């Protein structure tokens, strides 16, 4: 907790990010008013359901939005780079951005098979960023690739470096993409659902690996996931997204123990929990289910986006989008009624 009290060395600082998609009839706002910071050695989890905007946020930071469709309409994305300089990624040219990706920012995606090229060997692909960003020769880059494979726990690294992606298991492939992401010692690692396609015993391995590597290297990590269990396992702080906005943010233990937004409360309650479910079943209790569905981008409510599904909503909730309120210095919620709700549920 003490380490969290003092502001850590900020690596990523996103302010007022708004990303829009252009469609024939105009613009759709996919994410809005996103503020995020991630410090060195810190993991921030961005959690939300399909369509909440968590991936659009991470793609915006990497500037990997589909050109001509997705566009950053407002905000800044300031990154502290390896040379100590701070750049606003939003204003960088595509050419400069290419120097940032893979060098200052490492990226790991959900599906290791689609982020690896099937016609190049694992070693070639890991050494590519080292050759491009560091100007290393082929031999030196390949040696570095082999030691990276070793450091991500791939046994027999020399032989594996000569193999093609299809010769590796899903877990091994994800280890290889992590090695690729770390090849140039980035200050920030963005991991977008890196364990979602993996079996649970392999997921446990990859989470432990990411934690170990982060600790060793002191990287900042932005971890995008829909899985609240994974968040509790890996992250220091969490930002819960709903319908394109952050609705609650704070230290993971505090937010999960005392959620202050009805959506976070609902999400936590609707997850069946090991060891508890049989007791609930025997007691004839139902799993809490949030009624209704996420609103579409085309018909966003005028006020709080969660209001139509919220059991605590009052008249004024649908008038304007609530601002983020301070629960304390580290914990914010986008709920007008958070104080009354805490009293109502007796926390």
């Amino acid at each position, binding site marked *: 907790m003490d380490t969290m009290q003092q502001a850590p060395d900020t690596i990523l600082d996103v302010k007022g990010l708004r990303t829009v998609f252009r469609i024939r009839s105009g613009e759709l706002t996919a994410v809005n008013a996103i503020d995020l910071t991630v410090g060195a050695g810190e993991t921030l989890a961005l959690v939300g359901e399909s369509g909440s905007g968590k991936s659009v946020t991470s793609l915006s930071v990497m500037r990997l939005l589909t050109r001509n469709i997705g566009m950053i309409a407002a905000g800044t994305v300031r990154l502290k780079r390896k040379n100590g300089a701070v750049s606003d990624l939003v204003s960088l040219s595509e050419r400069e951005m290419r120097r940032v990706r893979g060098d200052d920012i490492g990226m790991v995606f959900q599906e290791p098979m689609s982020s690896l090229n099937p016609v190049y060997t694992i070693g070639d692909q890991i050494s590519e960023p080292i050759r491009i960003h560091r100007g290393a020769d082929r031999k030196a880059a390949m040696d570095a690739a082999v030691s990276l494979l070793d450091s991500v726990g791939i046994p027999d690294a020399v032989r594996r470096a000569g193999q093609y992606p299809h010769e590796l298991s899903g877990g091994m492939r994800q280890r290889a993409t992590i090695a690729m992401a770390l090849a140039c010692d980035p200050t920030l690692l963005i991991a977008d659902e890196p364990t979602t396609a993996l*079996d649970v015993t*392999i997921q446990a391995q990859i989470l432990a690996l990411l934690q170990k590597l982060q600790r060793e290297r002191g990287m900042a990590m932005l971890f995008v996931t829909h899985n609240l*269990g994974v968040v509790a396992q890996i992250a220091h702080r969490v930002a819960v997204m709903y319908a394109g906005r952050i609705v609650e943010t704070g230290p993971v233990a505090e937010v999960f123990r005392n959620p202050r937004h009805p959506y976070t409360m609902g999400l936590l309650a609707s997850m*069946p929990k090991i060891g508890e479910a049989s007791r609930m079943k025997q007691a004839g209790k139902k799993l809490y*289910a*949030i009624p209704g569905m996420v609103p579409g981008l085309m018909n966003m409510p005028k006020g709080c986006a969660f209001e139509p599904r919220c059991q605590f909503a009052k008249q004024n909730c649908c008038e304007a989008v609530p601002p983020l309120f301070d629960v304390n210095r580290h914990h914010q919620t986008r709920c007008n009624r958070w104080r009354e709700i805490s009293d109502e549920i007796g926390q």
Partner: protein
Amino acid sequence: MTEPLLSVRDLGKHYTSRGTNLTILHGISFDIGKGEAVGLVGESGSGKTTIGRSVLRLVEPSAGSVRFDGTELTTLSESEMRRTRPRMQYIFQDPFASLSPRMTIGEILTEGLKIQGIATSSERMDRARKALEQVDLPPDAVSRYAHEFSGGQRQRIGIARALTLAPEFIVADEPVSALDVSIQAQVINLLRDLQQNLGLTMLFISHDLAVVEYICDRVIVLYLGRIMEIAPSAELYAKPLHPYARALLSAIPSPDPDAPRESQILKGDIPSVANPPSGCVFRTRCPLALPACAQIVPDLREMAPGRFKACIRDDLD
């Protein structure tokens, strides 16, 4: 336990691929009582979907017996099997791939009845409307198309399709895995209510042990095509007997910030079915394996009433 409605004995499935023999399932035996919900859990390649499909003969088993309400299914002719199928239905994982985009919801829901020659076409539509009500969808959905519905609604339609034939037995294959948490809870509650209110017997396939605990009375844990453990849900989650079941349970990350975080992490990968380990198939990753585990294929033995495990290490219990 009540008299089994479904009784599976020594079920096996082999494929031959480029001259190598792949054993997908080996010696699978279990019973499901009338009105019981049994969970099949395991990771990729454990054979859970193959078991579900073999039971309904959507894939043909290579060995063993499947008895449903006293009738041996594996030897039935295609037309006899078709006459049995209305009593046994399947709910698929992917709510997008399992509904035809060209058919109205009414056509999708009544197709089975039509093939079986049950009722007149207007009666069939009434049954479709009733099935939609059972899954909390508006009856007028019959005239709409699948693309007009969200993922959660489509999964409800998939469930309604299984219900129109008024089956006694349902195989639900990862029915909530493709859904978001908040929608998943709605469908889980729906499935449990239907199972209890209609007295359905269910084989529930999932990789998510928490969902299985909530829905199922008993759980079968699979690894690489073999049964590792069978136990009543509450007992399995309180005290798993097999080392794999223990590891699987401890690998699930808990959202509870106060939960202990010393999960026991299994080393290595799930072996390939083309080249399974000798002896116990789990021994290559088992933290408790002994040299003997490479020699002996452990039998599934009853350790306590209703509790079975396939592990030679009885000294651990």
